[in-house]
């Protein structure tokens, strides 16, 4: 297998854009990425498009609108990890020698409110079991009970990510929030409050992968799904509720990615990880080995993940400040980390960053871990 490089990145800001179509969002990101890569029509041989709610031929519509169709175009759905899955598939095409250059894009226009998902059987919806924030709440409660994570720690995670997001012009919420403000926001599902949860929204991101050497390399891109028992003893795969002794999708994907890249957590300079809710960030940090298992509360209280710490996490502001357009979120991480590794992240630059990690995990209990390096 040969090395795979990031030739270019592009992003449409994350937010709400009632007047713009999904195709228009995707087209903006694709044009920006191709321009950044110096790649034009005929310059890439396949495209992989991550989306969950984008519907039939979402990627084809974007490339057709830009006069770029004719190549193989595959739409990829992997929940919150959709964009990461698209990148992993695209990278394999280049690494194998099948293609010289591949376009990867992710796009989404999420409905407002609690996400409706065909993941749940109709009877589960009718019975009230399709309450997504409630699953996050159970995971948070378990984390708090088993690892001395406090409500204040959850609020601090959210405050930190929102503070980071102030410096990101592509984020939806660019407002610093205090721990007290977050703790005073309305309860959604105990113990999670409104300002501890990310908002589903809209956005797009694109990455051009190439065999031609560039500053940033994709050193690893790993995908895994849950084992029975890493969730519950029923057919409701949900990441974050694990039987003791069963590795989670994130743990498995991280192990694969660290092995593939030949690095470990101690080698990382900057991380973008899944922070759908504040407790998810702590759990992600533990599962990725950024702190000790069940040591996440202490990690937060010691300033873990904050800009200026040993290992900044979510310098982009994370999903808590950017919002989450499912198909685009993982590639948004790659855009951020590519800028970090190029030394082009402006006011939120992590000095000297050389080894980065992007992590997504979502419904269906599937995780993607990508290691971009300089």
């Amino acid at each position: 297998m040969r090395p795979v490089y990031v030739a270019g990145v592009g992003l449409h800001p994350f937010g709400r854009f009632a007047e713009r179509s999904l195709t228009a969002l995707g087209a903006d990101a694709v044009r920006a990425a191709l321009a950044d890569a110096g790649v034009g029509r005929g310059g890439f041989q396949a495209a992989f498009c991550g989306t969950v709610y984008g519907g039939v031929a979402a990627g084809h519509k974007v490339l057709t609108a830009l006069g770029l169709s004719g190549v193989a175009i595959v739409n990829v759905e992997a929940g919150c990890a959709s964009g990461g899955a698209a990148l992993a598939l695209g990278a394999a095409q280049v690494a194998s020698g099948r293609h010289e250059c591949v376009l990867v894009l992710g796009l989404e226009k999420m409905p407002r409110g609690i996400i409706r998902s065909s993941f749940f059987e109709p009877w589960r919806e009718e019975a009230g079991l399709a309450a997504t924030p409630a699953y996050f709440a159970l995971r948070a409660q378990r984390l708090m009970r088993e690892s001395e994570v406090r409500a204040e720690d959850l609020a601090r995670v959210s405050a930190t990510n929102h503070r980071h997001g102030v410096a990101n012009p592509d984020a939806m919420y660019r407002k610093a929030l205090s721990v007290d403000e977050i703790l005073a926001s309305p309860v959604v599902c105990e113990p999670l409050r409104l300002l501890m949860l990310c908002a589903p929204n809209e956005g797009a991101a694109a990455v051009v992968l190439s065999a031609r050497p560039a500053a940033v390399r994709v050193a690893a891109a790993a995908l895994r799904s849950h084992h029975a028992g890493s969730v519950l003893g029923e057919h409701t795969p949900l990441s974050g509720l694990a039987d003791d002794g069963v590795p989670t999708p994130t743990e498995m994907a991280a192990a694969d990615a660290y092995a593939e890249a030949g690095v470990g957590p101690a080698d990382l300079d900057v991380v973008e990880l899944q922070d759908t809710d504040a407790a998810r960030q702590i759990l992600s940090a533990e599962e990725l080995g950024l702190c000790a298992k069940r040591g996440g509360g202490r990690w937060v209280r010691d300033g873990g993940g904050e800009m200026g710490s040993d290992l900044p996490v979510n310098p982009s502001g994370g999903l808590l400040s950017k919002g989450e357009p499912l198909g685009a979120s993982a590639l948004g991480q790659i855009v951020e980390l590519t800028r970090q590794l190029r030394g082009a992240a402006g006011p939120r630059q992590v000095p000297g960053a050389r080894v980065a990690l992007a992590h997504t995990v979502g419904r269906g209990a599937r995780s993607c871990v990508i290691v971009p390096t300089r």
Partner: protein
Amino acid sequence: MAAARPITGGLFVVDEEGPRLVAARCAACGKPHFPAGPVCPYCGADGTVETRVGPAARLWLYTAVLSRPPGYRGEVPYGFGVVELAGGLRVIARLTEARMERLAPGLAMRLVIEPLFTDDDGTPVLSYAFRPEEA
């Protein structure tokens, strides 16, 4: 009024021990799962044996749902949690109690099968939930 119907078939029954969930146990590795399926999700073996669990359970994790999730047809707020049944089986379930101060880890719970909503033609629709034993 029409006779009640279950929210979907195969989830629960009432027998001489009371309300029961219809789970299955793997003939090869012995692990239980719910709802019952023909293949073990743990080891992939064909051949599972129906096993009825409940009504006794213990509460593991819990929260309250305050606003109506998509497709839900019952009352809000409602409790939502994970209970542990005989044999170590953990299931997600609606709880009849939504007041957090009335719930606690390890609380003894009891399976109930009760009408959750009424169909457009007036048929009561039965679903399962767990209520605190003391209630």
